[in-house]
């Protein structure tokens, strides 16, 4: 059992890191431990933000919130909901697919840039992040960014830390933008399209001035595993509209008319819409209690279905699409097929794949993050050293 450190203050965290530096004790940073399947590297002690808890400032009228990194996401979302506000990027909850327990933290959400269905129009977690406080590998307490919407005062280190998976620094506090919750939401369902037709339908929907805020395609193999099988038979291409009730109904009609040329159109009400998009967000069909390899792949929207079609010829895959087709949740039958997958990603125009789940030995043996070119790796290494010269913070992202 490796030691777990849970400093109760930013100062204590800084001291801990500084002292660890003297003995070159490496750390693996964690939040609520929901990604426990991604193991730390050998010999690293766990450094958790759990002790850094609490909402520091929340001003609904300014649409910003400042929170200590270890604060449970649940607590943040509850405080926002009281004012009918929300995180625009719909943070993903991976506990289902990872079969893990633990409480997702707001720091973990930003450190993994965990963004859900609305990401493709409203931006990722990183786009909502306005400012951070963090402890770097020298044990210094650093602040970057601020609490205003527009800020180009110096380098945007906050966004750089978003999605850095604990490789650069220990986030201690985050300030982010929030948005009003939409009054209502509906989903237009187009049934029975194949993957290529669905991709065309989603592109057509996005070209309309109806402000689609979710565009996913659920092939027949997974459709029944969403919302208890409540969607119509056959593959479901689903398009979400949100906003004021009066406006949503007008836009829904317009969108339904435009989609009628593609297939049979039906509509989900607000309640079913909420459940459906939560399950799309969390890849619920793959919360299957197995450790079959699960990839999260980001490519251009039109490339998603090309990628899956190519892979199908060579491997057992099951997939569904979010982000207009550009986010592919990909479950492999047995082997993760990392090399094959990454070769095809390149062939369809580039992107990246992250292996979220597999047997522990497979995870340990696979490059779970997308390998970068030598030139980019060299910059990453230099950037890593600029935060953490002694390499105290171990992460699979930068080694």
């Amino acid at each position, binding site marked *: 059992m490796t030691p777990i450190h849970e400093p109760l203050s930013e100062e204590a965290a800084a001291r801990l890191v500084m002292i660890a530096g003297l003995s070159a004790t490496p750390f693996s940073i964690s939040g609520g431990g929901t990604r426990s399947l991604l193991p730390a590297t050998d010999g690293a002690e766990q450094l958790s933000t759990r002790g850094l808890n609490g909402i520091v400032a929340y001003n609904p009228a300014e649409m910003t919130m400042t929170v200590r990194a270890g604060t449970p996401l649940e607590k943040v979302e509850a405080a926002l909901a009281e004012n009918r506000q929300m995180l625009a990027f719909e943070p993903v909850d991976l506990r289902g697919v990872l079969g893990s327990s633990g409480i997702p933290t707001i720091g973990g959400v930003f450190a993994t*840039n965990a963004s859900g269905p609305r990401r493709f129009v409203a931006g990722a977690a990183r786009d909502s992040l306005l400012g951070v406080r963090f402890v770097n590998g020298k044990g210094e307490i650093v602040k970057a960014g601020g609490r205003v919407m527009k800020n180009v005062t110096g380098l945007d280190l906050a966004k750089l830390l978003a999605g850095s998976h604990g490789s650069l620094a220990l986030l201690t506090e985050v300030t982010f933008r929030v948005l009003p919750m939409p009054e209502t939401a509906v989903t237009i369902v187009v049934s029975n399209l194949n993957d290529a037709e669905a991709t065309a339908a989603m592109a057509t929907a996005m070209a309309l001035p109806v402000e689609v805020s979710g565009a996913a395609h659920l092939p027949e193999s997974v459709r029944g595993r969403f919302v208890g099988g409540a969607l119509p038979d056959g593959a479901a291409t689903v398009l979400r509209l949100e*906003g004021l009730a009066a406006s949503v109904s007008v836009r829904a009609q317009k969108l339904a008319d435009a989609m009628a040329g593609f297939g049979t159109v039906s509509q989900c009400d607000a309640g079913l819409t909420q459940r459906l998009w939560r399950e799309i967000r969390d890849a619920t069909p793959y919360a299957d209690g197995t450790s079959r390899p699960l990839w999260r792949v980001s490519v251009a929207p039109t490339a998603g279905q090309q990628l899956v079609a190519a892979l199908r010829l060579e491997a057992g895959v099951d997939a569904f699409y979010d982000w207009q087709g550009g986010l592919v949740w990909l479950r492999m039958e047995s082997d993760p097929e990392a090399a094959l997958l990454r070769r095809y990603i390149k062939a369809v125009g580039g992107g990246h794949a992250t292996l979220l789940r597999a047997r522990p030995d497979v995870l340990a043996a696979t490059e779970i993050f997308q390998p970068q070119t030598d030139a980019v790796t060299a910059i990453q290494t230099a*950037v890593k050293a600029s935060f953490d010269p002694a390499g105290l913070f171990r992460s699979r992202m930068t080694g």
Partner: protein
Amino acid sequence: MDQIAFLEPRPAVLSRRREIVADLLDLLPEGCLVHEPRELVPFETDAFVSYRRLPLAVALPETTQQVAAVLKYCHRYGVPVVPRGAGTSLAGGAIPQEDAVVIGLSKMSRILEVDFANRTATVQAGVTNLAISDAVSADGYFYAPDPSSQLACTIGGNIGMNSGGAHCLKYGVTTNNLLGVKLVLIDGTIVDLGGKALDAGGLDLLAVVCGSEGQLGIVTEATVRLIARPEGARPVLFGFDTSEEAGACVADVIGAGIIPVAIEFMDKPAIEICEAFAQAGYPMDVEALLIVEVEGSEAEMDAMLASIIEIAGRHGVKVVKECQSATEAALIWKGRKSAFGATGRIADYICMDGTVPLGQLPHVLRGTAEIVAKYGLRVANVFHAGDGNMHPLILFNANDPEDAARAEAAGNEILKLCVDAGGCLTGEHGVGIEKRDLMRHQYSEVDLAQQMAVRAAFDPQWLLNPSKVFPLEGRPAA
């Protein structure tokens, strides 16, 4: 007026001027190097005209490979490099220095690909901001960030300064609309960051390149996000008796969960200047004016406007003027977007760019008025109120050095006021040289050292745009 220092030119570079010019002439096609002193004059400053330095030479490459060749050469011989788009920086971001080679991207102005199915455009860095929207508008799309200088400013410059504009309240600034870049590093290495796929597979280097003011590398191509144009858009004018009322109205609109696509603020001096220039039909008997733009279908716009009018009523709105035609709407925006140019017709000005939390708007407006009065100067306020991004234009006479020094001092005080109110020095113009020496007011030494360390990770010798952003004292030894 010359208080802001530049780095001392490197004697070893100045003394080799002729050889450097000869070598660059060899590296570049004919007509791609400017080196005659007379021809260098147009490059000696940008829109922050109080400061000027004649560069050593100006390279105007036509390809990424040529940019790489010039950078590789400058890296080898320790020659500073100043990237330049259209030279519209209000912060002095593109002002050269005597020992620097300017790399101007003006010849790289082609739109390389428009991909509607993926809603992206890939363009060379010298393409103007407006040219992107123009190229896609017939198909019902636009590129969202819209700085006032969008007719002239380039996408490369927009990336350097993470530019915003009036409509970023809803759509975000450059960093939120940028998907990928082709970046040439100081040693000439060409890397691709991002692309048509969302988010980064490794560290999000694109995030730190955007807004880095040309200090991490030179962007030669960019892939940006296109958005389907809304069905309709309607700007409405709201006139108030005081700036405080207008400011409070903005905070309440946002607080009520209404996010119009733009909320612009003008005070009386700004209204007068812009009306005289554009005849936009602004009400003249008010002290403060908000331009609120809503978009969507007619029904949506009506609903949103009704809520906003109701809130404005609570703040004693005096005039509500809805435009009756597309021509009127265009005039309203023309007046707003030409604010800087129109101001330039009546006086010299410096434009501040501090951003404050919305609730602080009335306090900072009051403080700004007091500071400017203390220095015996005039100010016109015209800015993006919805996101707290203030643009006080401090009017002065550039032919009077004392007046100019007073304007600069007043500007510095206003920016400190913004930081003290929980805001920042610059929302969308960048630090450049203008705000460089105020960085310590916003950041601690440790904060700055961390930023400088990241900067040095890309450019260890500090050759790229070296006089900018970070205070000259206390830099790490190269």
